[in-house]
Structures are given as structure tokens and as C-alpha cells.
């Protein structure tokens, strides 16, 4: 893999790069079984998590990943009020550059912010989710989880169900899965599945069509109410129309399909309680694999701050 400074989108990577990072993630996951779950790969390096949006899983996953690589981790708390007051991201960048950070992991509600930071910063920038644009580390952990479950991603069929419009996960995960040879389909309420989606992704409108398509993985998305200033669909309809109900779970079980979800889960909306305990629900595997995938991503990036070592 050629040295690269940032990870902003899946689209910016070659298929070879993607496979390299996935292969290394397998090696990283082996470390989890050791009594000392730490390697010195990033010893002496400083990692900053810069989250302008609330996050539990992604942030802690990156922090655990960085710790397991022996990096020093700093959490930069950005008060949302200062953003509201018009704080410029450039002023933040100046501050960060003064801190001589090697890696910056950034999440922001605006699409494109990580790219702005990456352009003006020597640190390696990892996009941990920007608006509805991209979430590449989630894409890696999803691909890794499917590969781990089935031995390969190629030829698998994954249907992504829910709020496609607002979902950076849908964009990045569909991108990586298709690059690795999987087929992807979308389903969701009409206003939340934009017609301008990438060509070649079929769009279904009901579960019968999904089952007819014979998917391997049901990938559920959370309805992102916080991004909907005006309702996109009748509030009471979602679970019955698009969620994994107990009846649908029985069918999913019969067909031996897997269920994935990037979290956090809204029980009773996109997924019923029973589905959380279903034998092929991979949600907890995704969380564990997220650490391995993020360790691999950190390992493969080369900050410009290192070039003078």
C-alpha cells in the first residue's frame, strides 16, 4: 500500500488498499486474544479525537484502537455552542497544528469538514463521519465483519434498509462492499431513498421484494430523527413497513440471513427486541471488529509530521 496521509472516503482508496487494510485488521484482531492487548506500533505518536457531533461507539472505538497501538490519545471537546457562535474550523485547525498532533480523528455534522482539515494540516486525518457524506471506518468494519462471517465479501448480497438520504454509512458501506464484489440494494421510505443514488443499486419498496432478491445480509439503519427538521414519513408507520418485526425475523431465521446495524439501535423502530438476540445478529461483532479495523487504519496512515523523523 502506498503511503497515504488521510482516510476521508472509501472512494479514494484502491481495491488493493482496501484489502491491505482488511488483511491487517485480521492481524490486529488476533492481538485481542493475547493477555497483553497492546503493540508498540504507534508508540510516541499522538492521536486526537475531535468530535463535533455526539458519538459513543465510534469515538471510544477509535480511542481503544489508538491505545492498543500504544499511541497517546487526547480528546478535544468541542462545545457545540462555540460552533453555533460561528467558530471557524480554520481557527480550530490552527490550534491543532500548534499541538503537533500526528493523527486527527474528526466527526462533524457538515459534509466535507474532514477534507478541509486534511488540506490544511500535516496530521493524518481520519474521517469518523461527516454529515451524510462518508464514514469510511464504519465501511471497513462492516466489510471485515461480512468477510469474517462468510469468508469473502464477493458475491454476497446486502440490502441496506432505512434512512439512506441522511446516512453516511449507507454511502461508504455500499461503496466498499461493491468494490469487493458484493451486490447492494436499498429499501426505505420514499423521501429517504434519493433517486440520485449511485447507479446500479436496486431500490426495493417492501420486504417481499427483499426476500425475493435472496439477500445474505439485512443491514438496518437508524432513523436519524435529529437530522429531520420536517417529518419525512408518518411517524407510526416505520416499524410495520420497514422494520424487522417478529414475523419477518422468523423468515430471516428460516433463510439463515445475518442482521447488521451500525448502532445505536432504536428498538421497536427498525428492529424488534427478539432480533437483537437472534443467532445471526452481528451487531456486537461489528463493535469488536470496529476496533481491529480502526487499528489497521491508524497503522496504515502516514502523517506528514513523521517525514522529518
Amino acid at each position, binding site marked *: 500500500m502506498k503511503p497515504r496521509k488521510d482516510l476521508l472516503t472509501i472512494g479514494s482508496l484502491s481495491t488493493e488498499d482496501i484489502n491491505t487494510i482488511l488483511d491487517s485488521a485480521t492481524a490486529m484482531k488476533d492481538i485481542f486474544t493475547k493477555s497483553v492487548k497492546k503493540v508498540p506500533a504507534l508508540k510516541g505518536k499522538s492521536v486526537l479525537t475531535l468530535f463535533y457531533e455526539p458519538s459513543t461507539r465510534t469515538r471510544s472505538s477509535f480511542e481503544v484502537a489508538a491505545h492498543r497501538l500504544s499511541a497517546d490519545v487526547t480528546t478535544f471537546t468541542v462545545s457545540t455552542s462555540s460552533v453555533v457562535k460561528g467558530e*471557524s*474550523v*480554520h481557527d480550530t485547525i490552527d490550534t491543532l497544528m500548534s499541538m503537533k498532533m500526528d493523527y486527527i480523528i474528526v466527526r*462533524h455534522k*457538515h*459534509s*466535507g*469538514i474532514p*477534507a*478541509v482539515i486534511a488540506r490544511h494540516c500535516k496530521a493524518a486525518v481520519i474521517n469518523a463521519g*461527516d*454529515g*451524510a*457524506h*462518508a464514514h469510511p471506518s464504519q465501511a471497513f468494519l462492516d466489510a471485515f465483519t461480512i468477510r469474517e462471517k462468510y469468508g469473502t465479501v464477493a458475491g454476497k448480497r446486502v440490502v441496506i434498509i432505512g434512512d439512506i438520504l441522511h446516512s*453516511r454509512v449507507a*454511502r461508504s458501506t455500499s461503496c466498499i462492499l461493491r468494490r469487493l464484489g458484493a451486490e447492494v440494494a436499498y429499501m426505505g421510505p420514499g423521501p429517504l431513498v*434519493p433517486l*440520485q*443514488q*449511485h447507479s446500479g443499486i436496486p431500490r426495493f419498496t417492501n420486504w417481499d421484494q427483499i426476500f425475493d432478491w435472496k439477500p445474505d445480509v439485512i443491514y438496518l439503519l437508524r432513523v436519524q430523527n435529529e437530522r429531520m*427538521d420536517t417529518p419525512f414519513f408518518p411517524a407510526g408507520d416505520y416499524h410495520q413497513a420497514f422494520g424487522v418485526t417478529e414475523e419477518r425475523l422468523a423468515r430471516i431465521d428460516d433463510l439463515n440471513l445475518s442482521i447488521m446495524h451500525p448502532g445505536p439501535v432504536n428498538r421497536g423502530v427498525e428492529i424488534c427486541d427478539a432480533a437483537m438476540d437472534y443467532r445471526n445478529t452481528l451487531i456486537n461483532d461489528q463493535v469488536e471488529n470496529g476496533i481491529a479495523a480502526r487499528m489497521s487504519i491508524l497503522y496504515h496512515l502516514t502523517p506528514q509530521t513523521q517525514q522529518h523523523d
Partner: protein
Amino acid sequence: MTNTYIRNAIWAPTGETCDVKIGPGLSSRFDSLGGLTTCDAEVHPAGVLTIPSEAHCTDATGKIVMPALFDLHAKVEVPGRSKRESVSRTGQAAVQGGVWGMLVMPTRGFMFDNYATLDSFHDAVAQRSAAEMIPAGTISMGTEGRQQAPYNTLAARGVSILTDGDNVPDNLLMLHRAMKYAAELNLTFAIRGDVPMLSANTYMHPGTTSYALGLHGTPACAEEIGIEILLRLARDAGARLHIQTVSTARGVESIRRAKAEGQSVTAEVALHHLLYTHENVGDYDTTFKVVPPLREQSDCDALLAGIKDGTIDCIVTDHTPCTPFDKKQDFVSAPQGATALDTFLPALYTHLVKPGKLSWAELVRACCTAPLTIANPRDDESDEAAGIPLLLFDPEPEFEVTADSLVCGTLNNPQIGTTLCGQVSLPL
């Protein structure tokens, strides 16, 4: 003072070869310019003029003589600069781009909703500007869409066009009443077609690019419905309407239909909507963040067709200076707007006239006579309107547009980094 002469130039409105006599007080009146007159110059068919042997005479073979351009949609305020410097720099930029006059939109620093601001603006223009600047009064106080501005006061200070600039009034009752009131004052309402509820929190045209970038799209129907609303309100109120910065094919169609029905409506398109599509946004290039957003190639084609058949009256710059710092922000946070005055005529020539998409006569109509007529609606022919200065345009020289070559003081001109053709000499 002795007169000077130009020989064998091409007179853009007709394409004929002409000779020009230049001197104070000279003028010619042309039906091809909508009855407007030239200022400090006479234009004659080649060979008619007797040029004294001792006179200074320039051979302009291959060059174009034309009336200088008038831009019906420009913002003068340069963020971060004083009002006087804003006026000065924008005037210089206009002259560089072949523009001798412009209608100035109200902005935060130039809020033309009272006589004091208008007076101080007129003073600043008189002292500082190399170009004519005509302020457009506001429709509502502070362009906030609630209370009508004092139209009588504004009209008494020479205002003939009312607009809330980038803001589109969403209180239709206020707007309807404003139109009814102002119709009797012979004022024109200049508004962009939009339904703010549909375009709120959107950043570009919805399409493959917006989806890939994760940006919410501004539906074309917001403009199309907005134009229909404006047309019906103005028709009911008996008001003269000018629709600003049309960007959609269906918008053009609505205007075409209204004109066919005899409604008193005019319309404009911004140059960037003729030249670029939503795909130019590429990887979050904020230079191409404009309102309304850049749309599909089919829209560009329909807009150009609208110019050619007269449905769209004018091509404007929609010149909107933004600081480099502001435009360096992420796409959502960065302000909308692009500048175009500095490069207006060379860009029009390079992208539209040279490839044969637009004739010189169509350019003169869309960028000079039509906007002037809209900005200065004259009720009687005897009105002594000031003449239009002429410019000389040499289409041959090529130049690369660089940040240093722009005088307006900002860098959000989409032409930066491109090569344009043409050198403007204004005034002659």
C-alpha cells in the same frame, strides 16, 4: 479639444464595419439599441466619415466596437472592507470587465430601505466609482420580508427597482400588498423564484453530485413554483415584475408563457448558470456554491435558448464578493456567491460568442440594451436618458485569469485558473 477616430471596427449590434468619431458631447441614436444613444462618440458606417488627415486615427480592423455593458445584478459590498473601498474596487472591476454601470443589490452594509443610505451611497459612487452604480431599493425593511419599505421615499431618490436581494419574501400577503401599492409608483419588483420552505437548509442542486457529497439538494420545483407564484401575484396586482437569476428549464417555460400572454415581465440569467452545472462543485468547490444552485446541462441549454428567443432578457453577473477566508470553509458553512465583474465581457466572448452559441447582437441586447431599459423604464420618448459609453474589444489576446489579475479584491471567481480571450478598452 480635437476629436479622435477609429476606423474599420466591427459594430457589434449589427456586425457592420464602422468608423467612430470620439469626442465630448458627440452621440448617435440607434434603433438597434432600443433607441438609446451613444455617449461621447458617433458611430458611422465605414467610409462615410471624413477623417481629417491630421486627426489621431486608430485602425481597428478585427476589433469590436460596442456599447459598454450594463449589469442588472451586482453586489458591491466586499466583506471586510469599508463601504468606500467596496465601491471603488467594484467600480474598477466593472470597468475591467467591460461594464460601465450596474444595478446594485441591497446587502447588509448597503441596506437601501431609507434615503440616508441611498444618499451616502450616491456620494460614495460619485467620489469613488469608475462605474455607474444604481441602487435597487428594498421591498421590505431590512430585506426581512415583514414591513414594506418606504417606496415613495425611495422613488423620490431615483429608485426604479425594488428587490430584497438574496432574500425571497415568503410572506405573500405582504408582497401582494407591496406590489399593489408600488405599481402606482411605476416601480419594478425584482425577485428570484423560490419557495423558502422547500429550499431551506439545502446547498446545491439535487443529483448525483449532491448525493455523493452528502449535501441536501435544492429542488428545481422550489424555483418553478416560486416563479409561478410571482407571475400570478404580479399579474393580479398589476405590477411590473423582473425575475432574477432563473436557473431551471421549467422556469424559462413559465416566463415564456407569461410573456406570450402579454404580462409585463422580464427575466435574467446569471452567467454562471449558462456556463456551469452542479457537477462543477466536484469535491466541495465552494466557488461554485451559488443561489440558486448550478443545475443540469439541459437547464443551461434551456436558459441559453431563452436568451436567444428573448424569453430571458438579460445576462447578469450576480457578482457576489466573498472573502477568501469565508470561501475556504466547508461547503455548508461557506457563503454562496461568485464574482464575475472583472472578467464579464471576456468570459461572455470566450464561452458564448466565440464558440458561436451567442451572436454579438444577442450579447448587446442581453448585456446592454435590455438591462438598461429595465433599470431605467422611460415613460416617454423625449426623456433624455444619458448615453451609453462605447468600448473597444480586441478578441485576439489571450490571458490567464489569476488572483492577481482581479481587482475586486476577492478570489471567488470561477474563471480563476482559466484562459480567456479578449481585451477591453473602456471607455474608448
